[in-house]
């Protein structure tokens, strides 16, 4: 599949999100959830962007989601599918849809988590049709 031939840059890991990327290296997607207001958010912060509580914790995502929107970037050396995926846990995240026929993608299509290696960094959580 074309998307696998892309060279993915390593994410810039920060002190705040080290655990997220450590988990990614073990094949797990973490989501930050607030114990104050009970809502999960993305990208992860230590202070909840909804209620500003600092009582937030990591939860492991189920890896299930649906495509909120997508766009196949045709004008790239290797075309790829940008997407927002709505996680079963609630938040929508920027990601790619991989290992599939791009011409058959649809909004609200069910997808599941996969990881793709980066150039010298932790792997990136991506999604493929479920």
């Amino acid at each position, binding site marked *: 599949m074309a998307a696998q031939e892309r060279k993915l840059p390593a994410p810039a890991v920060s002190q705040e999100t080290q655990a997220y990327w450590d988990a990614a290296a073990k094949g797990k997607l973490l989501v930050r959830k607030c114990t104050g207001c009970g809502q999960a958010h993305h*990208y992860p912060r230590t202070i909840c962007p909804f209620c500003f509580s600092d009582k937030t914790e990591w939860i492991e995502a189920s890896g299930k989601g649906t495509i909120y929107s997508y766009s196949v970037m*045709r*004008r790239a050396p290797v075309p790829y599918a940008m997407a927002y995926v709505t996680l079963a846990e609630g938040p*929508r995240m920027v990601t790619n849809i991989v290992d599939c026929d791009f011409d058959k993608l649809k909004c609200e299509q069910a997808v599941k988590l996969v990881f793709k290696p980066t150039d010298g960094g932790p792997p990136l959580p991506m999604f493929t049709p479920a």
Partner: protein
Amino acid sequence: MSIKGKAYIAGIYEHPTRLAKDISLAQIHAQCAKGALEDAGLTKDDVDGYFCAGDAPGLGPMSMVEYMGLKPRHVDSTDTGGSSYVLHVGHAAEAIAAGKCKVALITLAGRPRAEGMATGTVPRSRGGTPTPDEPFEFPYGPTVVNMYAMCAMRHMYEFGTTSEQLAWIKVAASHHAQHNPHALLRDVVTVEEVVNSPMISDPLHRLDCCVITDGGGAIVVVAPEIAAKLKRPKVKLIGAGEFIKTQMGGKVDLTYSGARVSGAAAFAEAGVKPADIKYASIYDSFTITVLMQLEDLGFCEKGKGGAFVADGNLIAGTGKLPFNTDGGGLCSNHPGNRGGLTKVLEAVRQLRGEAHPAVQVKNCNLAVAHGTGGSLGLRHGSATVILERE
């Protein structure tokens, strides 16, 4: 405190170049400043407020203040991408109303063509300390075009908007650009030509995208007592609004833009309704940008933008809402990849009666200029101003 009636746009200038190989960035800023001050009938020494954004070389306003020999007692280098200069008009009015300055100069310049910048199709890292969002976005390959394209894709899914409807926006801009001798693209295009142009990132085709140009512009905003002494037609600022629309912690909603908030604030301050507007300058980085902003500013119901823009409704002379009569960013100019300033310029031309005769709106007494900066699909700054001919 309202800014309604507290400031006037007295001078404007749009640099005629679209490719600035032999002109420096600072030089373009200064040429535009000079042009706008001369248009107003003012001099450099009258300037006591200076506004610029991230396109200005150096740290904030400092290098350009020095280069141009200004002595401002008020500066503001708020950067909300391409919408900055629309926002600056509002901020200039606030500063004038508060007595912080009387003659505010706003400048923009950029040279993406001369510098060979890959503007729309290559993911860009900002460099330096990464923003908190960067590791969760940049490695996936977000580009300018594919993030706007995702807004279009969701709009099509939720509301049935079509590529042909989006294409009408480019068609209208091209009808206007044919009359602008400085426009980069002057050929009138058809819906078929737009939808048959190469797909860049689904569902946006090449002709759904704006031009990439070098150049710049400047605006002079003045206090009422200054405007009263000048000879140019008086264009009064009666409303302004701004907003930063984000991913909202993962509660992403691509179906609307920050115009919903900035537009409502500007219309409320002005005390007018979208139906009162005779001419609209609408940020047009892509066709979808225009469609969503028209809905969010209240020119039509959410989801009905496709039907609203179709069949030439945005074309001056025939349509109900003439837009971007200079050809806009889609056909004429998007200097430095920041199109907000030129939106204000054409609105002022229309209100002065100085637009090209072929596209001049009759009795144009009320206009809106709206900008979106950053990325519609990631996070963007919205700014709206409402201008009235006095």
